[in-house]
């Protein structure tokens, strides 16, 4: 089924007199004939008036909310606070756990910078209003961070048990990311539900654990990093989508 530019013009002029050329097109076009007929028929679908009592109640509820929150909080305040909080949690975790990555200092710092940038950028975009390139941010951020992590890996194998040390990393990464994720999801309830936003936010907060482990974990083999560092991070992004779907929404603003 294709619609011509003339069909689009008819659509835009619905409810108004059509110029002669468009009227001739509409007369011979099955799409436009149907569109015009449906537009006229829909006239009958008027709805009852808003009950008079409901509007004062709705207005009073809105004004009561305004009294509770008299000052405007720009969206970026929450987003910057989240990015700062995430960086602080990752920093404290790195200080407490120590840096044991065996890669060169430059490689460790470069990867840490990529992860920090990905964390801050994703947090800001996840909470920013309006249409944003969220899918691009999610895929791009994850791809760049994942590739940086694997290319900057030391390749060092400390010789501990594969599963035992791996599970320690997995659990640590999830635990370190729980508080940032909870904070981010709370902020996300101030905007309309969106699975993509939740995934981007989950990825941003999951970087906290990823970054702390990048600095701390001495195991630099791909066989350890992929299943116990990268996959739990992807799992946190998916988990954020599932949890957000269960949370109530405080504001439906886009």
């Amino acid at each position, binding site marked *: *089924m294709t*619609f011509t530019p003339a*069909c*689009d013009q008819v*659509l*835009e002029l*619905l409810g108004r007199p059509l110029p002669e050329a468009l009227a001739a097109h509409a007369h011979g076009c099955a*799409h436009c004939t*149907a*569109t015009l*007929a*449906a*537009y006229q*028929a*829909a006239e*009958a*679908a*008027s*709805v*009852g*008036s*808003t*009950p008079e009592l*409901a*509007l004062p*109640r*709705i*207005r009073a*509820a*809105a*004004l009561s*909310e*305004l009294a509770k*929150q*008299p*000052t*405007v*909080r*720009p*969206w970026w*305040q929450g987003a910057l606070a989240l990015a700062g909080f995430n960086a602080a949690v990752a920093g404290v975790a790195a200080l407490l756990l120590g840096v044991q990555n065996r890669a060169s200092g430059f490689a460790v710092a470069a990867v840490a910078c990529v992860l920090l940038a990905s964390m801050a950028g994703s947090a800001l975009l996840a909470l920013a*209003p*309006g*249409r944003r390139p969220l899918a691009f941010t999610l895929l791009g951020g994850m791809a760049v961070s994942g590739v940086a992590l694997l290319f900057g890996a030391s390749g060092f194998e400390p010789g501990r048990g594969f599963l035992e040390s791996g599970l320690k990393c997995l659990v640590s990464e999830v635990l370190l990311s729980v508080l940032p994720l909870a904070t981010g999801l709370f902020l996300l309830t*101030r*905007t*309309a*539900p969106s699975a993509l936003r939740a995934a981007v936010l989950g990825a941003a907060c999951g970087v906290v654990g990823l970054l702390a482990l990048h600095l701390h974990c001495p195991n630099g083999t791909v066989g350890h990093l992929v299943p116990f560092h990268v996959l739990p991070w992807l799992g946190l992004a998916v988990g954020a989508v599932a949890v957000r779907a269960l949370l109530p*929404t*405080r*504001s*439906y*603003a*886009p």
Partner: protein
Amino acid sequence: MGDSDETLMQRFTRGEEQAFDVLFARYARPVHAFLLRMVASAALAEDLTQATFLSVVRGRGRFQEGARFKPWLYAIATNAARDQHRRRRPEELTQAGELPTGAAGEDAGPRDLGLERTVQRALEQLPEAQRSAIVLHRFQELSFAEIAQALGVTESAVKVRAHRGYERLRELLKGLKE
């Protein structure tokens, strides 16, 4: 002539409660009518109208300078209706996964209720994406550019939805005119 919606919204974000009152007076009824067509339940439409204006208050920090107010407001109302539909328990939906029909006209006045209900039911049978495009265009009189902003899609996508929606509506109402 009064202030534009955008000027009022700017004044509201600066803390002027009166500006909110003017916006509420302008849009409470149209938003309620829109939601009534979207959810087909008077009680639910009232709740969602309240959720919409609470969101305007809570989310006013997300209104961007230079943006149009009307598409922003209808985006909020559409999001509220979608979320309500998503959260509904399966037993509250019909077998087709839609809301029960026939409730939209429950507080209607002395009009042709049979015809009105038939058209409303036909609207309710449209997929949500087509229904929101048609309701915003036909009844709320938003331009396609404004609908695109409200629904977060491109203008050409909205036009395709509207074309298909009107055609489907025509099919559903065929028996009415013949």
